[in-house]
């Protein structure tokens, strides 16, 4: 593999997202402008100008015409993906940490951090097709007072429930209709950094600083598999075509200078989904990996690191021809 190195950001990456077809890649970093790239050759399409702080998160609509981003400047913005124009701003009092479009793109969930006296909140907003009708008032607001920051939100069960991952290591299921919590489960010992849904929507993979990554059933919040990473895991993704889990992480950024880069385990690491064993690595980053994503066709993947680089890898033929045996 000869990966493409995308140098659009000068600060650590926070999240990477592919659109449905996988031709577009959005990178968010601790700088003001999320950047759109063509995933095939890594060419930069444009940057979304308007935020005034770290952009923590983003999501595409299913048809890729719109984009929602959440930023530490206490706002979430809707964008026109093609022109880079900011269509609408949801202004909050607290930094926004996670966003997710509902199936059908008529709703979005936005989580805000606990700040001053305010607890962590999850806001459900309605997304109007005609942007002139768009309203900033959330239709539901759920307070998650014990959880600390809500690092990921994910609509599941055909928008009936919302799954959230948070700083206290718990996963929670919320009833979107009623706005109440249905279930919570302590899955990790430390904060959950990332949670990504499988292709069929039945399970999620989580990544936590407690040095594990877990496969969790969406309906029961039961832990199905445990992947021991030995270093803090910052992001994890499920291959859409194989039983492979991609995990990115590495030693904490604050301790990086104290050890050699070998010991830091800054590689992208591949675990077998069922057997739970690590079977391959791809090296490249000089610091911890903060974000990973699989291309929807499973033939390429991308990683974003604390070093500010996005690396876009297209698998060689041997990845597809060699099977993971026993």
């Amino acid at each position, binding site marked *: 593999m*000869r990966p493409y190195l*995308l*140098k659009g950001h000068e600060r650590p990456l926070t999240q990477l997202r592919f659109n449905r077809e996988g031709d577009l890649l959005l990178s968010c970093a601790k700088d003001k402008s999320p950047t759109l790239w063509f995933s095939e050759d890594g060419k930069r399409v444009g940057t979304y100008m308007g935020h005034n702080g770290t952009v923590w998160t983003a999501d595409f609509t299913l048809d*890729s015409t719109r984009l929602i981003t959440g930023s530490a400047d206490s706002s979430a913005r809707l964008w026109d993906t093609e022109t880079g124009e900011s269509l609408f701003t949801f202004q909050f009092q607290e930094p926004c940490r996670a966003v997710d479009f509902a199936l059908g793109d008529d709703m979005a969930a936005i989580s805000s951090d606990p700040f001053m006296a305010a607890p962590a909140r999850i806001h459900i907003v309605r997304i109007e097709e005609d942007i002139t009708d768009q309203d900033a008032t959330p239709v539901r607001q759920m307070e998650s007072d014990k959880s600390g920051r809500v690092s990921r939100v994910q609509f599941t069960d055909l928008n009936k429930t919302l799954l959230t991952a948070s700083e206290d290591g718990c996963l929670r299921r919320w009833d979107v209709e009623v706005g109440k919590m249905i279930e919570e489960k302590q899955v990790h010992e430390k904060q959950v950094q990332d949670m990504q849904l499988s292709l069929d929507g039945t399970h999620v993979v989580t990544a936590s600083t407690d040095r594990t990554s877990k496969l969790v059933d969406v309906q029961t919040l039961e832990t199905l598999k445990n992947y021991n990473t030995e270093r803090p895991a910052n992001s994890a993704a499920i291959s859409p075509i194989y039983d492979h889990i991609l995990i990115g992480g590495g030693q904490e950024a604050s301790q990086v200078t104290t050890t050699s880069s070998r010991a830091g385990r800054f590689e992208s690491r591949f675990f077998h989904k069922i057997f739970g064993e*690590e079977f391959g690595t791809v090296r*490249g980053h000089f610091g911890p990996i903060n974000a990973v994503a699989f291309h929807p066709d499973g033939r390429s993947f991308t990683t974003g690191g604390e070093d500010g680089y996005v690396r876009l890898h297209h698998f060689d033929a041997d990845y597809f021809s060699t099977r993971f045996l026993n």
Partner: protein
Amino acid sequence: MAGKMRWGDTLDDDDFLPPTTVTGPDAKGIKTMVEYKKNDKGDLVKTTTKMRVSRVERKQYNVVKERRQWKRFGEAVKESADDNYTVQAVEEIPFERIQKQKQTQAEKKEAADLKQALAGTDKQAIVGSLKDMLYKKRMERQLAAARGQLQVERPPEEDGPDGAPGSSLPAPGQGKPGGWVPPSLRNRQAGGDTGDSMRRREENSVRVTNLSEDTREDDLRDLFSPFGNISRIYIAYDRETGENRGFAFVNFVFREDASRAISNLDGYGYDNLILRVEWAQPRAER
């Protein structure tokens, strides 16, 4: 084509080269390209290249094709061609497969079996178990090299045992009184030096001859390490071909290990050749 040219014309114009012709692709998808060029001596060299042309069909969504035409926006508008926001890595980054723990345990067992066999005195048993292990290891290494997972070591440039990097293991009695010597001076000193380093080289040194051309340091290490700690391995490489010259020196830390290796491996069949293993003669007598 070259036949149609009159010989007088070719003499008149030294730079004249017949044009490159491309034929095909034919029914089997084979494209033939004929090129002519002059080599260093001024002779005409004809190169025929045959290529198989294959069509790869790739499905693409219509929306993706449309999006490919999108105009740049934001910061990307100001981007010029030499800004290099996207670069392709020069280095080939492999997907590194992780060796399974199970396999290494099996190997450990093999090594234990080998040790046990060596402890005995039955020469036949020793040679038999060694042979199995070495053949397996060698094949594994060649397979890895063929897949590009393992970098094949280049033979060292130096000729003669002086200054050859040889073994990476620390040799006993290394610390020289003169302290650090720049690499450029090391050879010169070693030539006139009859002190420690020379003696170390000849200490417990075993000469191995009748090696096959593609034997590498790793192979020798596998072959000799069951007998004891090795301080240095030196293989004589041919400067021109890079192949080894059929002999090598192996130094052991302990003399008894060396003598055990000699008694067990002399006359041992390796790579269809019969090895000759003996004490190395001091340099002066050679």
